[in-house]
Structure formats: structure tokens, C-alpha cells
């Protein structure tokens, strides 16, 4: 199974560090979201993985091999980069035919990828006349020509309408379900929230968090409202290791590290009435903003 391994990757442009000591994996069979605000170093990282930009430190390998050392790169990795373009005089089909030849793929493969990505309806149109959404589909078709096991997509949802976005989500999940390693970068969390199994979040070129999406939700807490808030505030931390109690209002506490039933039983045992007891989960959006240093 082919996976992408990024180890200690670093790149500076003059005094500006774009990426610093970045390590993460893109495992096969999963969609990994690569998240971070604009300018966090996502594109630079992907370009280093693809051998377009030479890293100052560290390495990035695909199935254990650097991109430049791949025997058949286009049949191993498919990439969509936001800065790549098309010759304006080429039709969508001609563009794919050029690269099918370059990759040594059969020319009928161009028709297959056009069907897969929905390019067929505008196959004969000049690329200069394509909408942003059509261009994204054509980029995706180009990336898929070699039926690669790894897909690296930089902001592939840019310019897609909601319908196109829903299609893209389903399509990428299907590609991952076929055992491919899929990395999708985005600066918009909601774009990948329903798509990704795993997330890699970077902030100012450094890893903020990497792991399953569920990790991003953070610890669930329990919100309680009680006239005996003071007593509970003193009582609850003694009930276990790592229990934290935070006062959010005069009569309200946010408890971490204790399940709701334990809290209810404890309050009941001390005869403290509870007016509200609610398990709470921070929203993914809030966690993302906390991690990436955006507005709270």
C-alpha cells in the first residue's frame, strides 16, 4: 500500500520560514484533510512532496521513494495544484491527450477519466472558455490519467458550486475507499468536515495537530447549572485525576473529565439540585479556529 510520509520537512524563503520541521503521514484508504489558514504553508508542503520545490531540511516520500525517484510518477501520484494551467488553444480533450501520451497511458484512458470526472460534456471546448468549476474537473481528470494510488489535491473545491462540491466529496471518498491515499488541502474547514477521515492542521508552517477527525472535536465536557454551584465547584475536582471545573456563569459550571451520570449521582448524594446538566462538544469550527489562531 502506498502512503505519503513527510518527515521533518522545512523550507525558508530568505528570512521567512514557510514550513518548519513538519512531519505527518497520508495513509492509504483514507481521505486526509490538510488544513490551515491561507499562507500556513500547505501549498509549499505539497510542492515539496511533489519535487517541485526543493526542501531545505527533511524529506517527503511516496511508498518510501522520493517523487523524483518514482519510476512512473504520473501512474503513482496524481496531483491538482492551484497554479497549474492549460494551453488556451487546446481543447479539454487535447490537453488530456498530450499528458496521456507523456505518461505512456493508452489514449482511450482520456475518455475514461473524462467520464469519471464529468469532463465529457465539454471535452471539445477550448480550455480558455472553461469555467473555474470545469477547469477543476479537468485538473482532476489530468491527475487521474495514470490511475494513481496517491492523490494530492490543493484546494480542489475552489470555484466549485455546491452541487460540484457535493459531487467532489462523494468522488474523493470513493477513490479513498478503493484503497488510495488522498490528501486534500483546504483553508475552509466546512469543505472537508464531511469528507475527511483524518486531519493534518498546520499553523505558520508548523504542525498543530494530526490525527482522526474525531480528535479535533476535543474533550467532551458537561455543562451544569445549579444553585449549589459553589459547593460543586469545590467538590467535583476531588473525584478523579484530571477533572477540571470551570465557572462559566454565576450558577453554571463546565466540567471536564467526568461523565454526566457521575456528576448527577454526586449532586444527588449531597442533596444539591441541578437545573441543567448537558454534555457539550466544542464545534469543529471552534477547535479549528483555536488551533490555527483565528478569531475565537
Amino acid at each position: 500500500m502506498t502512503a505519503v510520509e513527510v518527515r521533518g520537512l522545512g523550507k525558508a524563503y530568505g528570512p521567512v520560514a514557510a514550513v518548519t520541521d513538519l512531519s505527518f503521514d497520508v495513509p492509504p484508504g483514507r481521505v486526509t484533510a490538510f488544513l490551515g489558514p491561507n499562507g500556513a504553508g500547505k501549498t509549499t508542503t505539497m510542492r515539496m512532496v511533489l519535487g517541485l520545490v526543493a526542501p531545505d531540511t527533511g524529506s517527503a516520500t511516496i511508498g518510501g521513494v522520493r517523487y523524483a525517484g518514482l519510476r512512473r510518477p504520473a501512474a503513482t501520484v496524481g496531483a491538482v495544484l492551484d497554479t497549474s494551467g492549460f494551453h488556451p488553444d487546446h481543447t479539454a480533450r487535447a490537453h488530456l491527450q498530450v499528458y496521456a501520451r507523456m505518461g505512456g497511458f493508452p489514449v482511450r484512458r482520456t475518455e475514461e477519466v473524462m467520464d469519471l470526472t464529468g469532463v465529457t460534456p465539454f471535452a471539445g471546448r477550448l480550455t480558455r472558455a472553461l469555467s473555474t468549476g470545469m477547469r477543476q474537473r479537468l485538473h482532476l481528470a489530468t491527475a487521474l490519467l495514470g490511475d494513481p494510488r496517491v492523490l494530492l489535491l490543493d484546494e480542489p473545491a475552489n470555484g466549485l458550486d455546491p452541487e460540484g462540491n457535493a459531487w467532489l466529496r462523494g468522488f474523493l471518498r470513493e477513490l479513498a475507499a478503493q484503497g488510495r491515499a488522498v490528501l486534500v488541502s483546504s483553508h475552509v474547514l466546512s469543505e472537508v468536515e464531511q469528507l475527511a477521515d483524518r486531519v493534518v492542521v498546520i499553523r505558520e508552517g508548523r504542525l498543530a495537530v494530526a490525527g482522526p477527525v474525531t480528535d479535533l472535536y476535543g474533550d467532551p465536557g458537561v455543562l451544569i447549572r445549579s444553585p449549589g454551584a459553589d459547593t460543586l465547584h469545590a467538590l467535583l475536582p476531588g473525584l478523579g485525576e484530571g477533572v477540571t471545573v470551570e465557572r462559566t456563569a454565576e450558577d453554571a459550571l463546565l466540567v471536564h473529565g467526568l461523565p454526566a451520570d457521575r456528576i448527577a449521582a454526586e449532586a444527588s448524594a449531597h442533596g444539591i439540585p441541578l437545573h441543567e446538566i448537558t454534555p457539550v462538544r466544542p464545534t469543529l469550527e471552534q477547535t479549528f479556529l483555536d488551533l490555527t489562531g483565528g478569531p475565537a
Partner: protein
Amino acid sequence: MTAFVLAEWRRLISARLWRWGVLAAICSGAFTALLALIGPENFDPPLPGLHTTEGTRVVLGLLGLLAFVPALLGTSAVAAEYRHRTITTTVLYAPRRWTPLVAKIVTFTAAGLAYGAITAAVAAAGLFTAAAAKGVTLGLPAGEVLGLLARIAVTMGVYTLLGVGFGALLRNQVAALVVLGSYFYVVETALMLVPGVNTLYPYLPGGATAALTGFTYLADAVAAQTGGAAGALLPAPLGGAVLVGYAALAALAAVAVSLRRDIT
């Protein structure tokens, strides 16, 4: 490598540029026919007529000056990869960055030779037709005219190669055109006036071109003006080889630079 050449060929014929190339080749050939119809004796200043060796050579030599057109087309085609940012996809498909450049060189040299062949064919037809129409016998035997035209055709192929080499190096069509154009029309002429440098002339691009096309009007004129003897030119094949060498240097430099250059 075959796959890369096929891809470059497909890239070339899928865009409109090649049609402009064919048109430019036909027009270049027709230009010769027009010059022949006007007749060098009616040029300003008048030159020997078509019935003289010099007259026929002048008309063919002026065609040789149009070799910069396919060079420009070659430059355009290579620079287009950067202008339209298809270079990213190309490098992803070919991380060993010299391979697509070599494929381009092969493809465009073939295209340049085809360009030269079309130009030479149209020019030959035009020249013989014009001579017949004017009732003049050309100052050179037909075999020699065709030989000179073949040399011009080869020159155009080599110049396309030069254009590709410089286009890949400079990556900007206008910059490459300015560099090549100013070199041939200004710098080299100026260099010839520097004492001593003119002995190198046979090895400079202009001298090598003159050797290849067999057109020495410029060299002779400079020699006459400076009072020096026109330097002996290299044999045509050697002149061609010198030009190919310059193109190869440009291509090597382009590869060396692009290997280190980040693509962003």
C-alpha cells in the same frame, strides 16, 4: 523518450501556432518570389540582376535572413509552457526535467526542418516562375539554387533549435526574441568592427549562419567598409554544427538552471 516526443508533437499540433507556422513558411517563400519578380536591379541601391550569380544569391540570401521567424516560433512554443503554466503538470509527469526539454528539441527541430522545407519549396517555385515570367535565366544553375535553398531549409531547422534553447533558458518569449534579434542585427555587427574579433567571425553565430546559408553579403560589406579581407567562412556543415553547438549550450544551460529552480 518516444512518449515525450509524441506528447510534444500532440501539444504542437493541438494549438493554433503550427498553422501560423505553415502560413509564415509560405509567406517567407513567397517573399523570395516577390523579390525575384521585382528584380535585384530595381532594389535601392540597385544590385546585380537575377541573371547574375550575385543577383540570385542576394535574393536567396535575403530569404536566409528570415530564419529568425521559425526561431521565434520555437521560442514561443517553449515559453508557452511557462506562460500558460502547463509546466507544473509537465514536470509532475517528467520529474527528470531534461526529458521534456529534449523531447521539445527533437519535436521542434523536426518542425523547423518542415518549416524550412515548405519555405524552400515555395521559394523555389516562386523563383523559377518569376524568372520564367521575366524571361530571365537565373545566374546560378538550378542544381545550385536548389542546393542553396536546401541549406536555408536546414538553417531554419537549426534556428528553430536555437529558438527552443533560448526560449527554455529565458522562459520569456519577448526577452528571447530581443536577445536573439539584437545579437544578430546589432551586437555581432558591432563586434565585427573590433579589430581582432573579426577573425573569430566564422565561429560566431552570424558567421556560422553565413557559412550554412552561403550568403556572405554582410561579411563582405563589413570587410569592404573596414578595409579588411573578408574572413574565410567555415564549410557549411561545420557552420551548421557550430550553430547546433550554440543551441545545445543554451539547452544545457536551460536544463542546468531548471534543475535547481523551484516551480511555484
